[in-house]
């Protein structure tokens, strides 16, 4: 975590320009004023000094000041995070549950007609670049058919709508980004689950369980538990997306979440916001792999013993 955010800290400061250069470029503002603001924020200090100050702040839990939003980074993230978590959380739950169900179903009948159809469809879905799928959905349902509202999270009149309409408004904005993320997500998880389930299905314990007279449901349950490890590991790796957001899909649907904000923060050289976003996402990366490890041990006691 520390190393990752340090790396980003250095890279970001190596990039030409700083928050002020980006914000005031082309504005008729005296150079001296900009220089003064810069000095006030300590951006004139040598990089090691800036770094030491930044590290000290982080240790104290201070994430810094977002020059782009003119608010503390903590507040900016507090606004962005729930939006991203909502979209990504829904997409992750859908992908995980549907993907595991489909993959497990395929794994028990590998090679059958149904499996082949499903394998081909998931391969095609898996090969759809998320941003293109999003673009296609946007053009079809919004620009051509006009069934769904354009982009963003809510419509302009959201605040004055009655409660029922507001819920509907939210859902209408949510459905396309969710669909774009989930379609691809389901295929990823289904592919993993299928191959692990297929391998588990060939293990001798499946025959043993049948011979003992375990009902088919029970046999499936048995095999599935041993086939979970790779899927859990993958889910752990996906976890950082909950706080990092999906850059492409958020960008296309103008979803005001972390992914979108990170891109514009990099462009605006909003140092503190970018480093905070990286810090957050690497924290969740570490947490995700720990969690995956833990769940694997719970599901399958053979892991780690």
């Amino acid at each position, binding site marked *: *975590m520390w*190393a*990752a955010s340090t*790396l*980003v800290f250095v*890279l*970001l400061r*190596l*990039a*030409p320009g700083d928050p002020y250069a980006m914000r005031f470029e082309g504005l008729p503002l005296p150079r001296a004023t900009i220089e003064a603001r810069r000095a006030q924020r300590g951006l004139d200090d040598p990089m090691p000094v800036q770094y030491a100050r930044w590290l000290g702040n982080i240790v104290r839990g201070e994430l810094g000041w977002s020059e782009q939003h003119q608010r503390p980074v903590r507040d900016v993230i507090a606004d962005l995070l729930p939006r991203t978590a909502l979209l990504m959380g829904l997409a992750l739950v859908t992908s995980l549950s549907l993907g595991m169900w489909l993959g497990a179903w395929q794994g028990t009948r590998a090679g059958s007609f149904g499996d082949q159809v499903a394998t081909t469809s998931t*391969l*095609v879905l*898996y*090969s*759809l*670049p*998320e*941003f*293109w799928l999003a*673009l*296609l959905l946007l*053009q079809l349902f919004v*620009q*051509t058919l006009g069934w769904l509202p354009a982009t963003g999270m809510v419509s302009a009149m959201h605040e004055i709508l009655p409660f029922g309409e507001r819920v509907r408004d939210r859902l209408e904005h949510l459905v396309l980004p969710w669909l774009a993320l989930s379609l691809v997500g389901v295929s*990823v998880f289904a*592919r*993993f689950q299928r*191959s*692990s389930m297929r*391998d588990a299905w060939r293990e001798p314990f499946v025959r043993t369980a049948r011979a003992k007279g375990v009902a088919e449901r029970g046999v499936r349950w048995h095999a599935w538990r041993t086939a979970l490890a*790779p899927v859990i590991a993958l889910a752990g790796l996906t976890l*950082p997306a909950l706080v*990092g957001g999906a*850059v*492409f899909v958020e*960008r296309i649907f103008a979803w005001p979440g972390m992914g979108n904000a*990170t*891109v514009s923060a*990099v*462009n605006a*050289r909003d140092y503190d916001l*970018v480093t905070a*976003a*990286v810090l957050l*996402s*690497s924290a969740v*990366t*570490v947490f995700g792999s720990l969690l995956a490890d833990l769940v694997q041990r719970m599901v399958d006691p053979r892991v780690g013993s």
Partner: protein
Amino acid sequence: MSARRRTLVPLLALACFVVLALGAPWLAPAPPNAIPADGLIQSLPPTVEHPFGTDPLGRDVLSRMLHGARVSLSVAFLSVALASLVGTTYGAAAGWIGGRVDALCMRLLDVALAVPRLLVLLLMSALWGTLPLHTLVLLLGLTGWYDVARLVRSDVRGLRERDFVLAARATGVREARILWRHVVPHVWPTLVVTATLGVANTIALEAGLSFLGLGVQPPDASWGTILRDGQLPGGARWWLTVFPGAALVLAVLTCNALGDALRESFAPRQVAA
């Protein structure tokens, strides 16, 4: 489909893509950046003359797609080749030396993996301003080798203990030679599968970056930049989304299918996708 045909079909499809890309200057009806001489600078839907329509600058989309295939495919192939080289060297060295060096190398990999790849690319393109093509290849290559390194490392660790290594050592073969001539060739199947899937991934990533305006720069055509041109204000132009997108999906699909088929034919063992 038989296992053999499952490999052959995507392989042929890939060959078609390569031929189309290489033959672009002869196959394309118009130069990729040619703006019509009659001053008809507008985006038109498909006609007989322009089967895939024209973009907002009046350029022929089919020609741009053929030339874009050159850019998109060569960027993907070259950067994956670079990633494979770096990843194999790193993974083989770590796995072969083992012990503390190996542990350190793996920790470093964890750090690299903790930073989202897209963010690194974003920062790098901020660092450069506009990216020349070879820098883009370099960036994609240098951020894409982590998986290769991990897989090669775990393969090498297993191979290190095998008897043929002991035999080579007993006959006095130098360590470096054992690694490169006796161990690394066994890693080949893993490498080919990972690289094929990597090409699929990189084609999509490059298109995405170019779509955001961070990858291939205009006026150069790549599938991503054509898609980007379709987003310019002035109404929906489905032909600028559907055709380059279909080419993109087909190319990615081909590589994924080939990777899957190769994986099954090399070993029925699971390699992380």
